[in-house]
């Protein structure tokens, strides 16, 4: 039962990364690829109706973690206190940035909120990547299963690391590039003309760095946490995941060159999903590894709540997810196709 919930929580976080990922990516890119005010509005309108729905996956995922694995929730949220608070502030700024921009028609106002939206999107992407890096690398868990990490110490992966060290910084930069590519492909799907051209160009420019960073991160992970390979060696079929990662990367390149934006975006979805699943396979059955002593790892069995609660949860969770997927299908169908500022229905 705990194992099922491990994968359910992971699935929700993957949903979050895939969905909020593209609107964060658009946030990172829009200053560079959208030059005129109309283009900026078009870029923002492409995510306007869906971004907060996307963000709900974070809330629901966090809530699910809290309910299924209270020990992990308590330990990690208090341990990562400072970065989480910064993430909260960035989420606030980002929501404000996109939603308030259109309310007042002053150049200064619009430029300010564009900047705020881009700034918070960039930092969020970096922090998410670094956060995942922290979870993979492990934290200095104490006997009481608690820890507290400062933002940085000496940038080395040692017994007393910071949130940011060389390994997690790689994760942060990788996440920034990956989500930017993801957002660029989404923009290419949703827009036309000069904006679409520049979005494609950005993807082409970033593909090389994305490929290199992906390779570096795979190697770095095996160096920092060799235990990640345990599940892979036990079930060699799992090695198909990194193979799939490489294939999807190739897919992004080939398909976006052919201007088949939709297919390239799908390849990017596959890439993000496989990267996340690959990390989860490397971790399982641990939710939060200890950097010093694996006896202190927060595992599925140690940190799950009672079986009764988990069983009941299955029922409402399944029902809730069916509903949520239903809403998303309706919503995305409603706003399908290219963004058109003049037809009405878009914008704020």
């Amino acid at each position, binding site marked *: 039962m705990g194992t099922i919930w491990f994968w359910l929580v992971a699935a929700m976080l993957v949903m979050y990364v895939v969905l909020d990922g593209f609107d964060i990516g658009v946030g990172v890119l829009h200053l560079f690829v959208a030059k005129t005010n109309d283009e900026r509005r078009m870029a923002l309108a492409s995510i306007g109706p869906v971004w907060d729905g996307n963000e709900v996956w974070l809330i629901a995922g966090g*809530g699910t973690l809290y309910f299924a694995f209270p020990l992990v929730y308590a330990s990690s949220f208090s341990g990562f206190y400072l970065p989480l608070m910064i993430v909260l502030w960035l989420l606030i*700024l980002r929501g404000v940035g996109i939603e308030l921009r259109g309310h007042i028609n002053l150049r200064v106002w619009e430029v300010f909120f564009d900047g705020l939206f881009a700034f918070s999107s960039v930092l969020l992407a970096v922090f998410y990547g670094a956060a995942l890096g922290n979870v993979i690398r492990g934290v200095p868990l104490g006997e009481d299963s608690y820890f507290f990490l400062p933002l940085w110490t000496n940038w080395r992966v040692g017994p007393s690391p910071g949130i940011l060290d060389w390994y997690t910084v790689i994760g942060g930069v990788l996440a920034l590039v990956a989500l930017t590519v993801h957002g660029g492909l989404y923009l290419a799907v949703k827009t036309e003309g000069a904006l679409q051209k520049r979005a494609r160009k950005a993807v082409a420019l970033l593909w090389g760095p994305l490929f290199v960073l992906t390779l570096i991160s795979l190697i770095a992970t095996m160096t920092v946490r060799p235990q990640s390979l345990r599940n892979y060696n036990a079930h060699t079929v799992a090695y198909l995941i990194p193979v799939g990662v490489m294939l999807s990367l190739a897919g992004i390149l080939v398909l976006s060159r052919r201007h088949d934006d939709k297919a390239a975006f799908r390849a990017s979805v596959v890439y993000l999903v496989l990267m996340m699943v690959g990390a989860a396979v490397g971790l399982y059955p641990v939710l939060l590894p200890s950097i010093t002593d694996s006896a202190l790892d927060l595992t599925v069995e140690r940190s799950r709540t009672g079986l009764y609660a988990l069983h009941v949860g299955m029922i409402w969770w399944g029902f809730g997810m069916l509903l949520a997927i239903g809403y998303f299908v309706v919503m995305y169908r409603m706003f399908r196709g290219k963004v058109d500022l003049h037809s009405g229905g878009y914008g704020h």
Partner: protein
Amino acid sequence: MDPLVMHRIHFGFTVTFHYLFPQLTMGLALLIVVLKTVAVRTGNEHYHDAARFWGKIFGINFLIGVVTGIPMEFQFGTNWSHFSRLTGGVIGQPLAMEGVFSFFLESTFLGLFLFGEKRLSKWAHWGAAFMVFLGSWISGYFIIVTNAWMQHPVAYKILPNGTFELTSFTGLLMNPWALIQYAHTMCGAVVTASFVMASVGAFYLLENRFVEYARIFLKTGVIAGSISTMLMIFPTGDLHGRYVAKRQAATMAAMEGLFHTEKGAGVAIIGQPNEQTQTLDNPLVVNNLLSFLIYGTTSAQVQGLDHFPRENWPQPMPLLYYSYHIMAGLGTYFVALMGVAAFLLWRGNLYTTPWILWPLMLSFPLPYVATTAGWMTAEIGRQPWVVYGLMRTEVGFSKYVSAGNALFTFLGFMGMYTLLGILFLILIYREIYRGPHRESVHHTTTLLEE
């Protein structure tokens, strides 16, 4: 600095600021459904415009509510990790359900309601408004279930290592305390929305602008307001009070400023509790009323604070006393104001009577004050317990998050929320100034005409 105090202030501040927004959106969601229903059934375009206008106000409030609400879910873990660790198996359930059910519902259908009017049929658009209402009210219920469990824990067992496990899902969701608290809280949300709507209507009438809309707002606000203010006191407030007296007797004694156990205890209308002398300074007391309200007879004995060990008194006790009195006092004023306004509405001269329009216009902040005071009554009243009678607050916070770190992030939130507050006021003022005239159809859909 005491980290416990710092964490309490931290949470108290963020949750208080947050709740300024959902209390309006939950109430407004209902009123928008009412406006939409009239619009669709009568075909009166003014009602469509009115719903659209309040939809925009709703949208701005919803945004601030969402961005200030996300920290709440995080803060259980960041600032109250030990509490979360021990009780997450129980209250994680309703909190996760809120995320999975209502948040999706609300945000999806709000998008449809705000951006989809041209693409939806009239009834489908009504449906979107209704789903937003449903989502926000379900959301409120899950939050109340969480809070009610802390006030009155049910459906749990405690394992040898101190963690709480859920034993009955329906028991948790049907916690009698939650049902009463929910009814009371939702009435409060409708009160807030009614006062805000009536206030905008009164403002337009006094300014002689958007007169036909002003009448719709006033009528809707006053009718909903007079019903909800009455329900606020009876039966929901009355029941809630009796429940507190039964389950949290120390809380009730502190709320009433009752230092000594008395037969035929009275209700202090005003008076300042003095913890040193354990008396009420400058009291004005209605004799026997408290005994009557709780037990139905004027001579019943009510336990005073002296009945409880000092370390079990809610702290800060004077703040609890004042919060409760401000809430109750304002509640009485609301009934009176809305009662008079409803009478004038029935007589047909509400719209032309400046002496009632002025207080209606100016009273809109008061429900916010009353609601905040009500929450403080509930939350300080629960002290010194984070789970009433089972877990003291001082064991709940994150012991590795120092007071300094909590102070730093508290200051960060203060700065951020000040900024949000200013932006919010500017935007709301702008929407109200612009008003719900017909051109506003275009404002919601394209910016080019502006």
